[in-house]
């Protein structure tokens, strides 16, 4: 078959050396392939950057704590630890029940309250207050905390996280914030 005029490689004769047209064709093809790949790169950036930015946006969303009323001061008996329910700092309109959060609230005295996060510091499972034992027990991997939130047993690396609490116009308010994440380094 006579393909000499169709593919440039056949025009390259080992003995005669490449013809000038062939060199021009090769550099033209090199240019065209680089052009095409560069354009593909541009397309990837134009589409990929906004897509990745959209998906990664929650990483950079800083949430300021929001004070949430969890009841009147008189609703809580001194010395008792009860669970209180409040809404997340800035819930999306379609969050439904997932916008709810809970904490363990103890009235220490007339005017002092302590609010413990319900998240075990090991891996975030909801700890339960056992009033008879004065302990918080985790259902997942065996974490146990004393009354003051310090670790009594099991794998938790830290005491229970505490929320800020304040009394405003006779109401107890908990400062709703992010789910506490235990990190290393």
């Amino acid at each position, binding site marked *: 078959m006579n393909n000499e005029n169709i593919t440039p490689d056949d025009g390259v004769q080992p003995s005669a050396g490449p013809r000038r047209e062939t060199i021009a064709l090769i550099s033209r093809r090199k240019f065209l392939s680089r052009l095409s790949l560069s354009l593909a790169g541009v397309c990837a950036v134009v589409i990929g950057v906004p897509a990745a930015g959209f998906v*990664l946006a*929650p*990483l950079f*969303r800083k*949430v300021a704590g929001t004070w949430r009323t969890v009841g009147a001061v008189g609703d809580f008996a001194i010395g008792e630890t009860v*669970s209180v*329910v*409040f809404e*997340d*700092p800035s*819930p*999306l*309109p*379609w*969050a*439904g*029940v*997932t*916008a*709810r*959060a*809970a904490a363990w609230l103890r009235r220490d005295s007339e005017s002092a309250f302590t609010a413990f996060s*319900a*998240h075990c510091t*090991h*891996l*975030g*499972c*909801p*700890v*339960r207050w*056992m009033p*008879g*034992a*004065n*302990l918080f*027990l985790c*259902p*997942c*991997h*065996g974490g*146990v905390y*004393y*009354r003051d939130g310090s670790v*009594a*047993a*099991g*794998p*938790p*690396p830290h005491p229970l996280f505490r929320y800020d609490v304040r009394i405003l116009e006779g109401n107890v308010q908990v400062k709703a*914030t*992010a*789910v506490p*994440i*235990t*990190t*290393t*380094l």
Partner: protein
Amino acid sequence: MKRFVVSTWRWLDDRLGLSDLIGPSLRHLVPHDATWWYVFGSATLVAFTVQIITGIALAFSFVPSSSQAYDTLRFITNEAPFGHFLRGLHYYGASAMVLMVGAHMAQTFLFGAYKYPREMSWSTGVLLLAFTLVMGFTGQLLRWDQTAAWSVVVAAEQAGRVPVIGDWLARFILGGSTIGGATLSRFFAIHVFLIPATMFVFIGLHVWLVLRHGISDPPVAGRRVDPATYKQEYHAELARTGVPFWPDGAWRDFVFGTALILGIAALALIYGPPPVERPPDPSILEADPRPDWYLLWYFAVLALIPPKIEGAVMILAPALIGVILLLAPILGSKGERHWSRRPWAIGVVLLSVLMIGSLWIAGANSPWSPNFEAKPLTAAVVGATQGPIAEGARIFHQRACLNCHLIQGHGGRRGPDLTFVSDRLSENDIIIRIVNGRGNMPAYGSILRPAEVNALVAFLKTCRRPEFPAKEK
């Protein structure tokens, strides 16, 4: 009529080129002795196909909204025609896929099928294993009940342990700083679009590699893989004794695949899908989140690793296992293929099965979790209805001792069984343990009144075998 069908097919096939496209794949020669051990790969593909079909059907009714998904799950399960069955198929299909991936890996490993020139078949397969597990985990989350919501938190907390970028990863998983409106949508996109699309690509590559390098011939003890001659010998043997894949090899895949589907359907009919539990309301603190069975062994790992090295184990161990699995074929691409000449290979498989199996049993029993359902001890167990012993037994329940300790099979398994505690410990020892605590036993000194300690001791002194005298002080 037949002539019309035949001529129509010929016209279509000429224009579409279907025979040219798949004909060579169907006719390609496979080793005649590649028999029933070779069905697990196609069985994995069968299970994946079940997942695609049932998944698409379920998506017709599933609303991936944090506030509504739970209701659509209940609708699919309780009201939609075939919904209960479809969910069962999707669940047992996922289970079958995990099992078949495991069987496929064990078989190709023991047969040395990952050696030259099929190293990349193994490595792409390892990635497909990882994708399968991600699909399993995200699929459990799409049930979007209480366990699903808390599992997201657990996943975020685990990601949080990754050095430096942990907090960012955790937020990426939660879709923000808390569980909420953004959370479920992310997992829907990952489970339904991102991972399946990636899996299509890798399954295509994986199957292409089967065609490119051929199904590995069953190993023969003493016949070593030598990259210089392997391909030549393989093709010469195929030319001599090989049989066409269709139908000589494929019929076993069809038999096994059909059995697998019938098994999945039977399980779905008999046992049904996992129940939809309480709603995904993070303020309901009576929760007991557990992963589905295929990750239950990992749940046990998280409970059992010593806390001091936990951070390293949680992050480094999976990374290390992944790297070893990916690089395994490159580290050992030559030499013996037969399992009888590779005892360490049998050891690795046995050890993996034993480790995952025993961790799985540990996860199913989870003795490290307190028993929140512990009921007060009955008079038959206590042996008294009034007096200090009965009072001690009442306190034993009221002060939550029973949530962690067993008395004659009642209570929790977090701490030691106290049925015969007085055979081991003297009265003083018991008091010291209660008041000061020890190891995982919290110190009750500031929690109990002296009279309560006395009553507990009175009760625990009766906890011994009748034939042994109590240990003297």
